[in-house]
């Protein structure tokens, strides 16, 4: 099972961010998602929402480029998780800067909601810069929309399990998996949102998801500068997905 780690970049500060990211670099996992901070991370839960404010103050393109380069040097893929309001006035320029920073692709959580009417042009702009567009679906994405976006992309799929990050409402995981697998065929499905313990990971692996994405569960230890708790969490994640 694959593992994607999410970090809002650069939270809580450039220095602390790099310290924690570097601790994960020797580990066996596949994808790093860097959340580019925005004023309104609408679809994130409160844990990740609060990281965006401080990360905006600490953000710099130079630091971002260095970080992405570090990630790529380990053989892991790097993806920018970006709310579309960050580039609505200049999608072309923004995608150019993301390519220049070294990202493999883009995850756009609000593309199919707030920017639905622009989905084709944004998808085209992303791919014109040689970036992968990672389809971002959840349980409320209609079948016809999933089929259309799959036809426009070729990458793995990000499936949001919960209504927002870091929260848990009761779900019928088997049913959700059955539907998304049926629609996505053999495409790799990485599932995220609300994944915070080994039991959930085992359940997700058992039903057939190809990987998990984890973010909120790492924030607390980074905030407290607690490397012991952080190491324990990511080693558990590595062990559950690759052990």
């Amino acid at each position, binding site marked *: 099972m694959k593992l994607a780690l999410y970090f809002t970049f650069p939270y809580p500060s450039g220095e602390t961010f790099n310290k924690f990211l570097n601790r994960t670099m020797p580990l066996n996992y596949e994808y790093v998602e860097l959340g580019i901070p925005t004023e309104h991370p609408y*679809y994130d839960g409160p844990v990740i929402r609060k990281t965006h404010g401080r990360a905006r103050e600490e953000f710099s393109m130079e630091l971002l480029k260095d970080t992405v380069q570090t990630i790529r040097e380990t053989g892991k893929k790097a993806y920018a998780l970006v709310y579309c309001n960050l580039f609505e006035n200049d999608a072309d320029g923004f995608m150019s800067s993301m390519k220049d920073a070294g990202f493999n692709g883009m995850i756009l959580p609000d593309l199919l*909601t707030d920017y639905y009417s622009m989905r084709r042009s944004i998808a085209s702009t992303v791919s014109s810069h040689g970036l992968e567009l990672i389809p971002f679906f959840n349980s409320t994405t209609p079948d016809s929309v999933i089929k259309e976006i799959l036809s426009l992309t070729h990458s793995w799929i990000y499936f949001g399990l919960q209504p927002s990050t870091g*929260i848990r*409402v*009761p779900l019928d995981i088997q049913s959700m998996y059955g539907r998304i697998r049926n629609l996505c065929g053999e495409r790799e499905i990485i599932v995220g949102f609300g994944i915070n313990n080994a039991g959930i990971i085992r359940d997700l692996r058992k039903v057939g998801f190809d990987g998990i994405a984890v973010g909120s569960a790492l924030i607390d230890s980074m905030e407290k500068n607690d490397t012991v708790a952080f190491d324990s969490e990511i080693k558990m994640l590595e062990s559950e997905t690759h052990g």
Partner: protein
Amino acid sequence: MYKYNHFIPLSVYSVKNKDIIPDQWYNIIPDLPEPLSPPRDHDPERSSIDLLNRILPSEVLKQEFTSRRYENIPEEVLRQYEQAGRPTPLIRASNLEKFLNFAGKIFYKYEGATVTGSHKINAAIPQAYYAAQEGVTEIATETGAGQWGTATALSASLNGIKSKIFMVNVSFRQKPLRKRIIEIYGGDVVASPSSLTHYGRQILKNEPDHPGTLGIAISEAVQYTLDNGIRYLMGSVENSVITYQSIIGQEAQKQLEIEGEEPDVLIGCVGGGSNFSGFVFPFMKTDVEMIASAASEVPKFSKGKYRYDLIDTAGILPQLKMISLGADYVPPPIYSGGLRYHGAAPALSMLVNSGRIRTDEVTEEKSREAMQIFARTQGIVPAPESAHAIATAIDYCKNPENTGKTVVMNVSGHGLLDLSIFGD
């Protein structure tokens, strides 16, 4: 036989109830033309979505965010549906056709035939059932016109639990019989704003005679739920409620099929959107025309904006993207309390915004006329809310362009407890 007596339900002669009542609810979400915008938190410091775990029965919450197209209806819920009067009849309104000199056909699905007199029982039974299954001993909710409160009170009693009903103050005063029937069914009903919650007390302090709104009553019911560790039942707007109400449209589909009829247009009234959506969504894969009829005095379709807005005035619940007049909108005290809500269900709002569903707005005066016409032709006094749909249907039939069409409307309830709309 039904050709000669159109007051008798078409389905009763040769078909059993179980052939009409579906054994699954239909969830439109996977079939929408566009993705539904997800709920959003109002307060950046906390998750109101996470808070739903403490507000809703767990199974209801699961169904709120499900991707299943069909959800099995539990056997016990089916049994209670049947006891509550399902299937409701689909009746050909041939007297109305004659009155209007209409060359087409008019049918109405009559939700007033349920024991509580409206469609609201369709969503109350499953929620009360799930709450009781989870060991909850009391539920709370709000009610505008009183129909949801009535349905909740009975559903709670059927499932052996208590109910607290926050009734919008203006309706509480206008409709003493509603209050009485809620109490007969075992519900404990209070006027909202009330002194039972912090939010209600704040409002009463500034305006002791506040008429109340559905948004305030929802806030109070949710606050009371959280304060007392019980569970809250949702009457409209939320997707799971629309799913439960899909029983209306699925029954109508089957009844029309038995009669060999295909509708050209479906018409229903809209408050929060549950009866209308439950009625039309199962038909969404066809090209049938759909018209949502709201109150002119609460002009959500002509003046509302499609945007994220609060469900409840206090902002406890998540924001939803919907057509809304604003959560702080205080509607005039029209008699159709069920149409006074500031917003409309997200899936319905999206389909109105996209143009798939047309809209109409009807004045209280015109709906009162429609009530009289329907009573004098079909013998049924419809609920004032349902009369908006009837008024829209009458206008539709009067339009020469619609000659010969088959019109199906949802009469969401009876108005036998609303007769004071015609004066004392």
